[in-house]
């Protein structure tokens, strides 16, 4: 299984106001993995974006990275 936390961490830390509060954990599944994202409360809106635009773009990029390895990754803000 590939590690997708590095990719998610890089993107999210670059766009939040409190990078030190960013925590990224990966929950492994058989084929589908989950990346759980913890953020400072004031950064949640920024990462989600208007109408979910930003988080959708992030998910799409992560999906592309996972597709190469025939895996699925869900990115969730917890």
């Amino acid at each position, binding site marked *: 299984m590939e590690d997708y936390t590095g990719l998610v961490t890089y*993107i999210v830390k*670059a766009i939040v106001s409190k990078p030190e509060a960013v925590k990224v954990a990966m929950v492994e599944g058989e084929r589908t993995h989950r990346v759980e994202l913890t953020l400072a409360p004031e950064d949640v809106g920024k990462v989600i974006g208007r109408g979910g635009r930003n988080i959708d*773009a992030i998910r799409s*990029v992560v*999906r*592309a990275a996972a597709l190469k390895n025939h895996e699925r990754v869900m990115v969730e803000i917890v």
Partner: protein
Amino acid sequence: MTTSIETSGATVDEAIERALEELEEARENVEVEVLEDAPQARVRVTLRETYAGNARLAVMELLSKMGIVAQVYVRNVEDPVTIDIAGQDLGVLIGWRGETLRSFQAVVNLIINEGRTDRRRVIVDVERYRLRREETVREMALRLAQRARRSGERVLMDPMPAYERRIVHVTLDAEPGIRTESQGEEPNRRVVIWPDAAAAGRRPTETPPAAAPEATPRRSFADRPRYGDRARSGERVRFGEPRPTTEPPPADES
């Protein structure tokens, strides 16, 4: 995001050359500081911080973290800053009709514009996919507009993402004899090209006009259905048969 490396060589030029190779940068994008001249030349080469340079670094970082091997070039330094990605097997980065590439570009823009007041849009392209696709969409739009004009019947285009529908609307805006609108729900929203005869002086919700005076099919071979003209499921029109005329929906722009 300053990148700086130190290299050495027999001469200053050689040291600089080595540094440029390592940074994959052109001479005009770096600042050179000579640390030692002889007997061994040592230089510190610093990447000049430019918008395009930052964008390129962000793209390289993202690709490497995605596990994608590719070369990254700056195609356009200004207006608009354009980054080109080249390599093998980049289909996964493009995605269906470029949707993944658009997301990738959105992420790049998020990263490099964070906390900046001088926000600029950066365009990310893969092997000129974007240029080629835009050209294809434009050609298809013009061809189908021609068909709508000649046949006097509406033409449905394939479902397309919003930015491609926009290209169609803009391309056909100045075209006489037709008008365009988007209909349907994402992701099946598509452009419909209406001939003006049907559009002029008539609300789109009214019944379609009576059959055109010339009852004989005056259809040209150039108007035959072609690949990409419509979704492959649903209605199907064979060459020479009349097209089904359906009630037009209320007009609205995409």
